[in-house]
């Protein structure tokens, strides 16, 4: 029993060490000669643009449902006019960044994990390595950077569509002019709401890309390991998103935002 405990602690340290080494390889290869711009753009398209419909629908429905759920209670307190403000602040500060990051973890991290895992299984990564090319630069750096760029952009998009969803929900029971609704919504949103939220999503993007690449690149042989890599990429990325969110809230509170 004691030995099992020792082995698992050793395994945890080994895994942590491997992740740190992988992270160093990523940062070192960002600044290497002959950066893969074309592949970065392709990955931004594959990872970001192709997630657009999913993120757009999610953002719209989150705003829509949140408004419908809040409306009766707000009416009870005679505070209907606060709905746009409440929805705007909630979506921008917390709900959209976390929900969109979790959705991206499901779509991007699993996709990256499965893609790199299958490349590993079919010896494509080794083929790249023995040809003298740099697989970390070509496969890993481009995917992590694409996630870092695209997750914040998708979150901003979801926030905008979330507000549109909220406006649609408000108009189910009566007419509210768009000017009034959006003026009220954005009058309560300050720079201190936008910046921490944006910075948080950059870290979410990094976590999604890094975990996906790490799990895929280090997957074992055999087709089963592709599924394992994709699955553990989603689980680990989701966990990291929650942890980063917890830390970010503490930091923003401490800084008074």
């Amino acid at each position: 029993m004691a030995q099992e405990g020792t082995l698992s602690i050793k395994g945890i340290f080994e895994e942590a060490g491997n992740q740190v080494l992988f992270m160093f390889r990523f940062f070192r290869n960002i600044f290497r000669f002959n950066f893969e711009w074309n592949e970065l753009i392709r990955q931004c398209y594959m990872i970001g643009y192709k997630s657009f419909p999913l993120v757009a629908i999610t953002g719209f429905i989150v705003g829509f449902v949140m408004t419908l759920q809040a409306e009766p209670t707000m009416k009870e307190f005679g505070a209907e006019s606060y709905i746009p403000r409440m929805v705007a602040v909630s979506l921008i500060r917390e709900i959209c960044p976390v929900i969109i990051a979790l959705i991206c973890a499901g779509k991007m991290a699993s996709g990256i994990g499965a893609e790199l895992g299958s490349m590993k299984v079919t010896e494509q990564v080794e083929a790249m390595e023995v040809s003298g090319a740099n697989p970390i630069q070509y496969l890993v750096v481009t995917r992590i950077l694409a996630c870092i760029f695209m997750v914040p952009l998708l979150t901003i998009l979801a926030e905008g569509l979330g507000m549109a969803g909220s406006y649609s929900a408000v108009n189910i029971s009566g007419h509210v002019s768009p000017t009034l609704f959006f003026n009220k919504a954005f009058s309560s949103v300050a720079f201190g709401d936008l910046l921490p939220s944006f910075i948080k999503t950059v870290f979410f993007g990094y976590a999604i890309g890094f975990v996906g690449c790490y799990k895929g690149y280090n997957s074992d042989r055999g087709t089963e390991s592709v599924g394992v890599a994709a699955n553990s990429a989603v689980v680990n990325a989701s966990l990291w998103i929650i942890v980063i969110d917890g830390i970010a809230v503490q930091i923003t509170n401490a800084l008074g935002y």
Partner: protein
Amino acid sequence: MSQEKITDEKVSESGPVIEIRSLAKSFGSNEVLKNINLDLNKEENLVVLGKSGTGKSVTIKCIVGLLTQDKGTVKVFGEEVAVLSEDDLKALRVRIGFLFQSGALYDSMTVRENLEFPLRRVLMLKDKAEIDTRVTEILEGAGLPEAIDKTPSELSGGMRKRIGLARTMILKPEIMLYDEPTTGLDPITSKEISELIQSMKKNYHVSSIIITHDIACAKIVADRVLVMAKGEIVAEGSYDELEHSKDEFVNSFFK
């Protein structure tokens, strides 16, 4: 370290291009290689025969630094692979071609992009006309000019191996390592691949190690044959010598 330096200072014209001494490699408690000693001479086709799991692929992965040995030395062009820096290893790998069992084509790219990949990323070529010329030439050499815009999923097993070989040869390596090049192919395609390997030697003067358990392939390409069993080399000689060996195990390969 430049390629010229390695060639001029370390390798004589007649010396072996690969020297392996007392190579041993284990995975956990599984001792895959015990004591491998092997030389590959210039412009020689060396066939390594052996049953699956005897460490043939592990040996050639140690040669290109994909795996690091536990004991022994692997020298390529006189340089010990295990102690090379990352940049020196990369420079060395450009001079070594490696054909994987599956062909290992990048399946998100077309055949053209697969062939352009090493030219753009390893040789850093930018001139589109030069890249196009080299891609067309090598595809014609592989006998598949019509496959240029196809994706790997549209190719048969034999075509994948041919394209994989073309992608490797486009960098004009001096050494080729073939990992079971005819496995999973029908006898006719196997023969075509074996003849292609032979033509690579004649046309490009490469030295090759061919890992296989296909006797028909060995007969066509071999200048010399090694037989491996349980992580050791148990027999060495020409194809004809080993074909008439009195050793029961060696003989069983040729039946």
